[in-house]
């Protein structure tokens, strides 16, 4: 992390005047010295106030960090005397913000239809360091990178904005994106995928039962005829392999088999059933396996109804996002009770929409929260400016009645929950990752600027140092 920061500085340096080089080198050396010495030592951030999001807001709080995780947050907390102390007594601390829905700096293929086996991890090219740096500057420490496309375009990747260049993810599978409502055939397509997955589950179950029966029979046979044991033993070893048929047929030449012969083999040995790659994720969803969730994305309120109709009879873990920019009909979500009540997680754009054909605004986020939903916000766009603006936009929503604690959660904890990472990220609490953003004012004050970002006990952004460098 530190090296990247140095890289940043070095890049900036090339553009600067040569007379500044010496001063800069000195300053970077100082920085490396302090941070490298840290090792496993404790780091303590002394703040004016800690907005923990998960719990209380604590004045004059100290945040104790060890091994990249938060050890304690409180007014009077103990820490070893040799701890590294970051003096931020004039700053307010908040957890790093999380953008759960972005396609920043991507050149991903535009997937259509069911490509749910596609992992963003495989083709992710991390954006330039400067982009990451700008995002850190805006207070964002984690990004949920979505696969590009429509239908079931793939599984998302969660990357930190300060990680290694290879874009190692915090989470790289299990977040299946489903877009709904743009092309008209999506409804049938989704229904088709779910039905196929259901069939696959059934077939798998049948195959399993059959295999078990056969195995039992063979055991009995084996008990009676110990000579045949060797042949039978081979088969369980082959499980998972493609050339299972060969054991029985004893025809190695049939391996590049033509289609008809393959079919025959399948009929003969159904226990070697394998789920198609693109159906694996839907099957997991329908089995309600842990760690897989559908991130469903709607364009209009009407799509929610269409979606409910499309998945009629199927149940799986879902989280929702409204991706429309116009917000022209989202009041129907509340008016017709489309999502309310259930503890649904809904991601919205931080806007104050108006009733159709009027100038009457309504606070969609607040209404949804009052109906029992968990609401989070994501930037309007992938550009850095929107990441910087989001606190201001959310501040406007708080003026229109959104509770402060809900607003703060919507920027940090709820996006973490959306990405299934609420145990590791999203608030300043014990055992969570030490992503701390330090501002010179209240987080919901649009005039407050991010002054410092501390990740895992290391300062990855410091406005003061940077401005000194620029000069």
């Amino acid at each position, binding site marked *: 992390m530190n090296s990247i920061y140095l890289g940043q500085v070095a890049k900036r340096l090339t553009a600067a005047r040569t007379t500044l080089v010496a001063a800069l080198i000195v300053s970077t050396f100082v920085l490396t010295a302090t941070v490298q010495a840290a090792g496993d030592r404790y780091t303590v951030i002394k703040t004016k106030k800690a907005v923990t999001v998960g719990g209380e807001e604590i004045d004059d709080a100290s945040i104790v960090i060890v091994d990249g995780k938060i050890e304690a947050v409180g007014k009077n907390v103990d820490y070893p005397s040799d701890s590294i102390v970051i003096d931020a007594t004039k700053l307010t601390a908040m957890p790093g913000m999380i953008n759960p829905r972005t396609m920043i700096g991507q050149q991903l293929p535009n997937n259509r239809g069911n490509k749910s086996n596609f992992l963003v991890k495989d083709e992710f090219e991390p954006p330039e360091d400067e982009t990451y740096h700008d995002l850190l500057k805006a207070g964002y420490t984690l990004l949920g990178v979505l696969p590009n496309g429509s239908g079931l375009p793939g599984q998302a990747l969660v990357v930190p904005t300060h990680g290694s260049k290879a874009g190692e993810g915090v989470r790289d599978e299990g977040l299946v994106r489903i877009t709904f409502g743009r092309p008209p055939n999506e409804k049938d397509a989704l229904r088709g995928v779910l039905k196929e997955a259901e069939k696959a589950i059934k077939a798998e179950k049948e195959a399993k039962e059959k295999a078990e029966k056969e195995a039992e029979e063979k055991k009995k046979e084996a008990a009676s005829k110990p000579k045949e044991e060797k042949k039978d033993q081979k088969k369980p070893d082959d499980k998972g392999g493609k050339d299972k048929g060969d054991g029985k047929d004893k025809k190695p030449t049939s391996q590049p088999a033509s289609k008809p012969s393959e079919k025959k083999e399948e009929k003969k040995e159904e226990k070697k059933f394998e789920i198609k790659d693109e159906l694996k994720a839907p099957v997991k969803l329908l089995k309600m396996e842990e760690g897989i969730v559908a991130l469903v994305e709607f364009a209009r309120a009407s799509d929610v109804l269409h979606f409910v109709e499309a998945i009629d009879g199927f149940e799986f873990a879902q989280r929702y996002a409204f991706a429309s920019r116009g917000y022209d009909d989202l009041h129907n979500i509340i008016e017709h009770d489309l999502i309310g009540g259930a503890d649904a997680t809904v991601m919205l754009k931080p806007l104050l929409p108006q009733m*159709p054909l009027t100038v009457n605004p309504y606070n969609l986020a607040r209404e949804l929260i009052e109906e029992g939903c968990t609401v989070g916000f994501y930037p309007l766009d992938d550009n850095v400016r929107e990441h910087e603006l989001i606190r201001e936009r959310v501040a406007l929503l708080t003026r*229109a009645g959104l509770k402060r604690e809900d607003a703060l959660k919507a920027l940090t904890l709820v996006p973490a929950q959306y990405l299934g990472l609420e145990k590791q990220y999203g608030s300043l*609490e014990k055992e969570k990752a030490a992503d701390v953003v330090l501002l010179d004012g209240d987080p919901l004050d649009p005039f407050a600027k991010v002054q410092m970002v501390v990740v895992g006990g290391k300062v990855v952004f410091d406005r003061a140092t940077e401005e000194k460098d620029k000069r």
Partner: protein
Amino acid sequence: MKHLLTYFIAGLIFAMLASGVAVQAAPTTDPSNDDEVVTTQPDKPEKKERKKRRGKRGRKGKKDKGDESTSQPTSQPSSQPADEAESQPASEPEDKGPDYLAITGGIVHTVSGADLRHVTILCKDGVIEAIGSQVEMPEGTEVLDVSGMHIYPGLVACEARGIVGREPAENTTNVFSTTLRLANTAGITTVSSRTSAAKASYGVVENLPLRNELFVSVRYGRTAEQREFRESLEKVRQYLRDVEQYEKAKAEGDEDAEKPDESVAKENQAAYKLLKKEAAALVYAEEKTQLIELADLATQYGFDLVIRGASEGWIVADRLGRAGVKVIVSPRRQVGANPYLVQESGNNIENAAILYQHGVDVAVTPSSSGISLVGLGGRDMQHLAMEAAYAVRGGLPEPAAIESVTLAAARALGIDDRVGSIEVGKDADLAITDGPLLDFFTQVQWTIVNGEIVYDKAQESFFAHIRPREGTEEVKETYSFWPRPFKPKAAPAPGEGGRYGGSEKAE
């Protein structure tokens, strides 16, 4: 909107609890003090609750019906087999059984038959179950008393645009669109858009489709198009004759019979569908020469023909009538006469009336096919009944004018087996008005689609305040959830809280 109030109260209680927790909690970093909303389990299925709570308008499919415990109507109407209820399998205890809606009072304009008074219309699961003066209502029937009102079949909007989505409408319709809502305010319950017909019901996605592939669109404007159409008809007719002969020969045992070239049918698919009577032809034609030619073609080749436009139809009404042509006219459409002709030409206010007199099936649709919120009002689909009323001005009998926007329109679309009139066994699509449909004073009070009330004038802000319905003088706010009582926060004491949102202590 009762549930909103419940949520509000629940929200208040929750807020009180949350603040209580906040006061009690010691300032520690223990994550167990998290707010309850956030500490939900990861990757937990979140659907179960939601489905139950789906809008009350969400109509159950046919499969949901049939709970033995609820009482069935004791007097089964003639059209419904009495043993149907018994033959249904016992369903899950969650099912509520069939949805019943009874409309009592009012004058029922059945369109297909006589007008009825003092009758009750009983709808079961979106279909009209019984009409009569002594209909017994099962337990749990929702009763809508419409005494003093007029009950018409839901209006059928032919050739509409922008109300339901592209084909297939059940997948693409934006059921919350303003145009759809306005269509319901006009009493429109069925919309045909190009080649598909679907229900227009605000906020409902179930049971939308009526029929796809209604028409074969035929272009008959330019000379080349006319020639092409004629040629393809001729080819297909020859092909069908050949096929007939071939089959005959084969049946007689002639093995040398040559099978006709199937590519003819593929290449001239439109004509093939027409001559096979799989669909009717929809042709846009205004001029009398075109109308005559088309009528002759329809007689000659024997296909179903629906002509959209036909503003010069009054000149050749006899020929159209003899050919059994259906027309979709716009009585208010003006077409100038051709000054170079020494014959009659141009439009005529009597067009619909003359066509009707000559036995042509007349359906009416406005010339502006969408619902527009700009430009000159009163000429779009929202004023479909006014368009029919204009034909009455030109001499069309009033019942025929009502039929032209209901049953005749359904016939033109080939969906008159399900919509267009108030009959037992047809879909429960009704437009309930406070006066005769074609009167300018009349407003639609309720619109019912598939047995669900999708529009209630007193509940929506569009027209509720105009001549308010008796007993509903107080106009209900459409969007009752906004504005909520909005309490501006007290200015924080100096040194406490920020400018934006402030801290909770300030309260």
